């Protein structure tokens, strides 16, 4: 069991961007969709296309991305999409419009309870999937396209304190070490006939049997911690502001992307609160296409 960062250097526009730019842009997209509660396809479709463009521009190999995409697709289509289609809940109240044409209905005989799929719910489910994908696609890119060694510097230069930035940096350094410790512990326990794949007994017994893996690794890490604290104290960590080896510098393209993100956020807010555009509605073309 080897831990490998998904990151690989690629000569792409996305990877040439400053990591801070990408965090800020992602935040702008999430806030633009969630704070003014945008459900209008005329805004959702362009934002989805923008996220999809970013995703394609990152040029991540299919073999690397297929499993994460599979898991995210299950979540988006089956859990969130189906929930929207069947219940119509999770969005504005106009989704459950009683006058919307019924596409499918299965009621418990003699009652009004059951399943009713309307045009409005179908359109809502499609919009919801687009909305989630618009936010998820740029986030999925991060581990594949951002150097793990730069997270600490990026957070420091995003005005995080030295402590927070160094915690981040140190966590990324410890991760492979503890993965190696876990692998060694697993091998050692297997040599003693411990089989993680064949844990027997009830749920409590199964969880208890994880202790031989978790306890040694965790306890060893607390001992390691004391040594690191001593080393850092000897170097007077925390007594004065630190300097960082790597320096990030915004390029014109970064200002452009940050400007685009902020513009998207402001536009969504102005459209929704200033002009009443951005709420949920079923467009005529969809209504006509579905109802014939």
């Amino acid at each position, binding site marked *: 069991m080897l831990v490998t960062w998904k990151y690989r250097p690629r000569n792409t526009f996305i990877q040439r961007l400053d990591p801070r730019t990408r965090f800020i842009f992602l935040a702008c997209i999430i806030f633009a969709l969630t704070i003014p509660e945008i459900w209008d396809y005329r805004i959702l479709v362009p934002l989805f296309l923008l996220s999809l463009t970013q995703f394609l521009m990152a040029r991540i190999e299919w073999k690397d991305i297929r499993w994460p995409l599979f898991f995210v697709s299950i979540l988006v289509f089956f859990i*969130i999409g189906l*929930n929207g289609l069947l219940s119509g809940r999770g969005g504005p109240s106009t989704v459950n419009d009683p006058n919307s044409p019924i596409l499918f209905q299965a009621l418990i005989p003699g009652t009004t309870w059951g399943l009713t799929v309307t045009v409005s719910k179908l359109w809502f489910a499609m919009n919801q999937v687009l909305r989630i994908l618009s936010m998820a696609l740029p986030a999925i890119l991060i581990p594949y396209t951002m150097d793990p060694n730069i997270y600490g510097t990026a957070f420091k230069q995003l005005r995080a304190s030295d*402590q927070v930035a160094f915690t981040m940096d140190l966590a990324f350094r410890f991760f492979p070490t503890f993965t190696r410790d876990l692998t060694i512990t697993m091998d050692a326990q297997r040599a003693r006939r411990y089989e993680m794949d064949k844990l027997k007994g009830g749920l409590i017994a199964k969880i208890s049997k994880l202790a031989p893996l978790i306890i040694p690794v965790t306890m060893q890490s607390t001992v390691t911690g004391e040594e690191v604290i001593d080393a850092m104290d000897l170097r007077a960590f925390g007594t004065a502001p630190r300097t960082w080896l790597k320096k990030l510098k915004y390029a014109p393209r970064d200002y452009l992307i940050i400007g685009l993100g902020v513009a998207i956020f402001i536009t969504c807010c102005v459209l929704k609160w200033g002009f009443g555009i951005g709420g949920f509605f079923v467009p005529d073309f969809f209504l006509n296409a579905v109802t014939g």
Partner: protein
Amino acid sequence: MNDRSAMNSAMNDNSTWEFGTRQVVYGAIGAALYGVFSWATNFFPLPAAGNITFRPAVAVLIFFGVAYGPIVGLLAGLIGNTLGDLISGFGFYWNWSLGSGLMGMVPGLIMASITDFKDRSQIIKAVGWGTLGIVVGMLFASLTEMFTGGIDLSTALVGYFTPAVIGNIVVTAILLPILMIAFAGVAARRGR
């Protein structure tokens, strides 16, 4: 130095909200461990009932909160969940990372009152505060999913909150006492 004073000096010589070298290092260690164990159980998922998943990493997170305080718990959960998601290739979900941070922070509030990691009543207290942390953290993450994921309240509570809370509480109730007792031994041997 007896066990009790050894542990006192090891854990409780700082104030609850201090953010110094100790908190930076243990915050990073907690985060890395939470990330490693989360990632490992993604590869070897533990069988459970329905859509309940067991994440042993949660017990480690709560242990770090109890042993080293709320700042360490918060950082370990926040950064650890981000790390676990990143290394699994799932992306970045700020609300679940912040929820994990809260899950580690709340039990950290009793750090100063945990003086004996082998004492039964203090272990029960730690499990109780761990449970509270799980409820607060998962409630935050599930409810914010209504805004980010566009789900409704019942889906947030039934589909996300309940399975997460049940699984995490079971894991914590079983593994946290074992971690605390093991830690008492390590701290006593280390003598600091």
